[in-house]
């Protein structure tokens, strides 16, 4: 072959290190075919895995919207939960329109509504957050800033890991035994549910916050010390402000987890169908309504459950989005 004239039609590998022609001609393919095949195969496999992972996610959202969205409306959020569904529908059978008007009968299928459960979810989860987040963050500060590798710190860390693994229904039973039973009829309440949820959130907050605190560079702690600051200054004015976006995320994960929990709530919150904004007295949550509605044979109850499920997902999602937004804004400010 004389001077290089276009890429040679050579198939396979040109053998770059030894083939002088390949060394100077960038158009020659010197990567082994097997390697290119492996590369292509890996790319396809990874994309396939992504699709497989995305299917259940998309499916859940699609089904939720399809089954639950049609009942959503202003009333859904503001009205009491319809209580005895079958009888209301039956009461109107054969009664003519004039009579219905006259006696003010609600006829046909009552529209599903979930107002009290939304309020109850926000109330119990909010109370749980108020309990678990300060305690959890304080514990994490102890673990990372003070205790470090002391025996107490290691014990707390171990217990908190164990707590993460405890099934949530055990938390419910625990609070049921030590709180609800003790106070009898006054026992079941949003506060009791909050206690159970707080037990659930605590280890998530502790370990999440500890991880974030560990990411705060020691240089900043040293800078505080070198300026004559005490440890407490370092924690309050340097470490916690730096870690705030991360702590928010950790707390948020815990809140989102708690908002969707059913088991800890079942024994502790009682049941109601009307609004209860107080931390005491029976209450209800979306998760509980989904549970009740799904196991009921009544079609309206089933529909209620779907709508409640969609609402719960939206509530949890907006909590996440809000906190993430706050965290991002804050960290952007820090980052300039």
């Amino acid at each position, binding site marked *: 072959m004389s001077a290089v004239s276009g890429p040679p039609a050579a198939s396979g590998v040109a053998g770059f290190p030894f083939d002088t022609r390949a060394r100077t001609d960038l158009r020659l393919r010197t990567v082994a075919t097997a390697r290119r095949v492996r590369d292509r195969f890996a790319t396809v496999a990874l994309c396939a895995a992504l699709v497989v992972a995305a299917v259940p996610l998309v499916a859940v959202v699609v089904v939720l919207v399809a089954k639950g969205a049609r009942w959503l409306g202003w009333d859904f959020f503001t009205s009491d939960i319809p209580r005895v569904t079958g009888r209301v529908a039956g009461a109107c059978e054969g009664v003519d329109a004039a009579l219905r008007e006259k006696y003010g009968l609600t006829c046909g299928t009552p529209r599903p509504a979930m107002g009290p459960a939304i309020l109850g979810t926000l109330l119990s989860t909010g109370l749980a957050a108020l309990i678990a987040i300060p305690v959890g963050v304080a514990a994490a500060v102890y673990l990372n800033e003070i205790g470090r590798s002391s025996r107490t710190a290691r014990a707390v860390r171990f217990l908190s890991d164990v707590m993460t693994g405890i099934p949530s229904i055990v938390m419910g039973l625990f609070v049921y035994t030590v709180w609800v039973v003790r106070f009898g009829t006054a026992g079941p309440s949003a506060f009791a549910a909050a206690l159970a949820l707080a037990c659930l959130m605590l280890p998530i907050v502790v370990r999440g916050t500890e991880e974030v605190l560990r990411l705060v560079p020691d240089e900043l702690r*040293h800078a505080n010390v070198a300026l*004559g600051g005490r440890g407490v200054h370092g924690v309050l004015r340097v470490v916690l402000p730096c870690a705030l976006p991360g702590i928010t995320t950790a707390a948020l994960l815990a809140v989102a987890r708690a908002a969707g929990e059913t088991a800890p709530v079942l024994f502790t919150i009682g049941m109601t169908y009307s609004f209860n904004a107080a931390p005491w007295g029976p209450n209800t949550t979306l998760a509980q309504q989904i549970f009740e509605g799904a196991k009921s044979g009544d079609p309206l109850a089933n529909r209620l459950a779907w709508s409640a499920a969609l609402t719960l997902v939206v509530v949890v999602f907006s909590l996440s989005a809000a906190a993430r937004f706050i965290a991002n804004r804050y960290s952007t400010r820090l*980052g300039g």
Partner: protein
Amino acid sequence: MAILPSTRPSETSVAAAIPSTYGVETGVAGTDNASDGQGTLHSTLPHQAQPGAGPDPVFEVRNLTVRYGSHVAVRDVSTEIARNEVTAVIGPSGCGKSTFLRCFNRMNDLVEGCRVEGTIAYHGVNVYDPAVPPVEVRRRIGMVFQKPTPFPRSIHHNVAYGLRLAGVRQGIDDLVETALRRAALWDEVKDRLNASALSLSGGQQQRLCIARAIAVEPEVLLMDEPCSALDPIATARIESLLEELKGRFSIVIVTHNMQQAARVSGRTMFFTTETDEHADRHVGVLVEHDTTERIFSNPRDERTENYVTGRFG
């Protein structure tokens, strides 16, 4: 024994009135290294015993030994730190320069397993005296670290931080401005004091850290390789800043860069490593402390000469 001429003319007249302790120290301090001295001067003047800083030193270091667990990092250093001068600490990696520096403001307290023996007298009081709270030491002795360590808050907040710790409540804005001006940063940041300190360049961040350290008017400023993370232009800025600061503060600067030591300092300490007989580990020792001019032109110790001429390290 030889008393080195002070770099400050006003003190040459007092050179004769050197406190007698120097003589005592020279006689007492370790003679373990006398064998490597080449001339008579070396054998009579053990390597750690040269009077460091002339009269009125800001620190008097006596028999300072630092251990990390069982490992001796710095052995038996006795010297002084000159007041209102820049003292450079040079030496090869692992010779204990930073460890030595961090003894002055007790930053080594934060290192687990670190033990400090000997005394460092600051105005006659040992900074390691049990009655001295470390916090009080660090409020009087500022420090700038190798990497810039601004808090991820506003520029103003960074400088005001130390002031607030020191209990200053009024006139913070003025003090922040003064500190930033002294750190030659004011003109660059005066319009954006509330911007994040992280939006500054590396060199600006380091000057911010210097401003933060000097805002509380410490008497001493310790600098641990403050330019090693900076480009040459930022380094030049910091060096000219040191020139301006040295009349006001006593500065001790650890540096890997011998040219930098030669440029910025009036006095230089040379540390090196010796191999421990018992374990195969390196121990940092102070070889020589003298005027920078002498260290770089006519050092007493052969090891110093080898180092500064680039034959070693």
